[in-house]
């Protein structure tokens, strides 16, 4: 018999993780490689309203925007048209006077002096983790704070996989595609195809998009869901009528909406994962109802257990009932 759970031995877990982490950091220190210049680290002293870097900045290898845009004018202009270019916002790269380019790309002096592309941080040549580390230096709030440790981070997805700093195409979020759905379906083909099915949420009609439910940066919820702590809480954020709790709860529904519904879409009514009554028969083969599949003969006989909404013709309060006689979800 399995032991009833009373929680993980968290103290042991934390201890083991701390040891592993300590060993890893030790190994890293022992075999440390030459440090890559941190492009997001600003120089010790910065110019004030200056159009060229101060001697201190020059000493740390910064050359200033004017120098960068001498060769990279289109990129400079494009960047200043985006949110990164709004200098009034003190959190943006543009607020670093004359060093907005080098806020992300790092000191450019070596690159300017040699003309060598490898002497400056090029995001197309960085690993996903390095790209993310650069972006997350400033993007530390809200859902960005959950990026590290999220599914996308684990799968080598970088910020630059979806977003474009210099040439965004979307109206918001600086995506590489016009819509968020287009960005997501680049990888999530299966979900994108489900949305095309007859039972679907209004995604293809443009009334919702993937980010209505998911936050691609990461979240405290499962499956990178945007709100709540469970899938059910996410669903109930729009379908609050089914949230309950009810006097008589349908425990399976209370535990997981996705046991019966496929939120991305299905070819069944109400996005059910299987047709009724077969869906209900996966869990209920009751003495009051035939323990066989409701076949054509049942439909021909217009059995109220097979036609229309099948089981929920009578068990219409299947999500839960607040009626004192609602234990079978009939009232």
């Amino acid at each position, binding site marked *: 018999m399995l032991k009833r759970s009373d929680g993980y031995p968290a103290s042991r877990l934390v201890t083991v993780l701390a040891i592993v982490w300590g060993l890893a950091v030790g190994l890293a220190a022992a075999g440390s490689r030459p440090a890559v210049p941190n492009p997001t680290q600003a120089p010790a002293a910065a110019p004030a309203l200056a159009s060229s870097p101060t001697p201190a900045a020059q000493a740390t290898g910064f050359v200033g925007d004017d120098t960068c845009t001498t060769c990279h004018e289109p990129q400079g202009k494009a960047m200043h048209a985006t949110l990164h270019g709004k200098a009034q916002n003190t959190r943006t790269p543009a607020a670093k006077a004359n060093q907005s380019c080098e806020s992300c790309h790092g000191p450019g002096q070596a690159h300017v002096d040699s003309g060598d592309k490898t002497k400056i941080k090029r995001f197309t040549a960085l690993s996903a983790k390095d790209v993310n580390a650069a972006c997350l230096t400033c993007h530390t709030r809200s859902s960005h704070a959950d990026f590290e440790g999220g599914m996308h981070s684990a799968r080598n997805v970088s910020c630059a996989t979806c977003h474009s700093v210099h040439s965004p195409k979307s109206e918001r979020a600086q995506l590489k595609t016009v819509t968020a759905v287009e960005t997501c379906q680049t990888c999530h083909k299966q979900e994108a195809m489900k949305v095309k099915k007859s039972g679907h949420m209004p995604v293809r009609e443009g009334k919702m998009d993937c980010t209505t439910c998911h936050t691609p940066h990461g979240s405290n919820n499962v499956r990178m869901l945007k709100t709540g702590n469970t899938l059910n809480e996410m669903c109930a954020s729009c379908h609050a009528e089914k949230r309950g709790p009810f006097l008589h709860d349908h*425990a399976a529904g209370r535990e997981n909406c996705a046991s019966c519904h496929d939120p991305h879409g299905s070819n069944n009514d109400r996005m059910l994962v299987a047709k009724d009554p077969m869906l209900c028969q996966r869990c209920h083969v009751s003495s009051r109802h035939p323990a066989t599949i409701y076949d054509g003969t049942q439909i021909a006989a217009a059995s109220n257990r097979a036609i229309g909404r099948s089981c929920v013709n009578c068990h219409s309060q299947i999500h839960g009932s607040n009626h004192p006689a609602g234990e079978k979800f009939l009232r």
Partner: protein
Amino acid sequence: MRTKSLTMVVALLLIAGGAAAQNGATPPAQPDVTKPEGSSSTEFPLVNVLDIAVRGTSFGSDSDPARFQRYRDVRDGGTLDRFRLFKDTNTYRYNLQADHIGYRDQRYSGSYTNYGKVKASFEWNQIPLYYSGSTRSLYDQSTPGTLSINDSVQSGIQNKTLALGTALTVAPAFDLRTRRDTATGTVVYSATPTVDVGFTVRNTQKQGAYPWGGSFGISNAIASEMPVPVDHRTTDLGTSIEFSNGRGYARLAYDGSFFRNNVTTLVFDNPGRVSDSPTAGPVQGRMALWPNTEMNTVSASGGLKLPGHSRATAYISVGNMSNNAALLPFTINTALVSPALDRPTADISARVTAMNYLFTSRPVNTVWFSARYRQYEMDNRTVPFKVSNSVNYDTAIVALNQSSEPFSQTRHTFDADATYSPVRHVGFRAGYTREEVDRTYRIVENTTEDIGRVSVDLTGLPFLSVRGVFEHGKRRGTPVDGLELLAIGEQPLLRQFDISDRDQDRFSTIIVVTPVSQFSVNTSISFGRQEYPGTTFGLRNNDNQVYSLGFDYVPGDKVSMGLTYGFEKYTAGPPIPCRRTRSRSSTTRRSSSTTRGGTGRTTARTVSTPSMRRSTC
């Protein structure tokens, strides 16, 4: 409890650390300096648009206009389909947007941003849901919450002078639809360079009617299909304050959700009766529709950067769900004496506690790992509602001697993932998840699932991208007591698929080849397999295969095209083996412990259950 205490302490320390970081924060060495304002050079995608058109749609005789317009409104006529107005300067930006103006699926939104100071946005979004344009019903919907049938029709059906089918043919047809109107307002005020304060208000109103079923009996039951009235409103409030700097963040938030239903009771005429009867059924049925409920949550979260490219974050939330709606009498049938209610209101309350702790580290450039512990507990504190005598379909009083089953659950999830990237384009990942669920009032009270996974991701190359993942999971639960299933009239060999023992494998891969920058070919392959080894009745296995092949061609910024073919196959079953040997010899099973729902009730019973030997086909 020990676990909870420890983890809470860890979380609070982290949050405190995050908050403390603001005091000791070393601001960027370079002071923030505002540039002189200049004109913005925004051109794309901030383009002002006014899209005016005339639209016409033709439906064939066998087409379904309602399904075609399920979530949209494509009526004939002139349209102002898309309106975009932007203004963007170096200090502020606003935009006004409208879509499908004047139609049921219209949307309006606006936003204003004063860079670095305030962001405000508003949206009004209408989502129609069109079920049918040819619905006929005997029910008159003029009184909200009461669906009545003409007395002469009821008399005719009861006296068998009028057939139900005949009566329906003269019923008027109407549109069956609902509409969800959502208004959302959000303001984020940046009080200081490190502190944001946010407010969100969302109001969702849903009105209309959708298909519903009601019934009046078990044997020879009349199941009436009816348009159930929908008129409810949900108001969500959210506020938060967040501190963040380069070293960490701390966030406090409150979220409240208030659901209010204007039609909490549905009374519907019995098409087969014109008078109440203690044996033949009532003249009306009555059911409780969605009750008014509330949910309030307070949460705190924080994160801290640690040495060795590491980071720890913690999140704790405490919430309450409640429902105190007045309860209806057991029956509306005046010919029956309604049993007394155990209490006049639902008086339901559940405490929800959630925690989430995450540690990530990248101690060396090629290795990254994360560990996460998540706990969710829904502690339903409702006193069970005793039901000594109940009423079936308002037709008869039956002895029940049961109580409601306030469902509770606790989930513990541990995730660990490690990624190894020997070269910058390639990542190999291995991961493990263990989830334990404790629940009450279900036939399996505890399940433990172990999931292992490996993946490989080849990304960042201009001509090739490959992603593949394989997962294997195994879920096992506490033994099922067939007696419990027998007691509720279920097949004792049945196992409920969402909590039964399960073995599952999943593999998926996606490959994108881009020989030239304008053209790419993509393919995806997925296999999934689930087996329920302890299940004789119910879902025994569930397989899926999904393939897709497509291409994209983007000759320029203004034009793109693509085509994808997808194939999906889902197989559930198989049915009970076609050849089996039934052994009707009774097997005596002894159950020494049948505890349900943590009530502490322990009984010892001995029953005989038929056993079944199976052989495969």
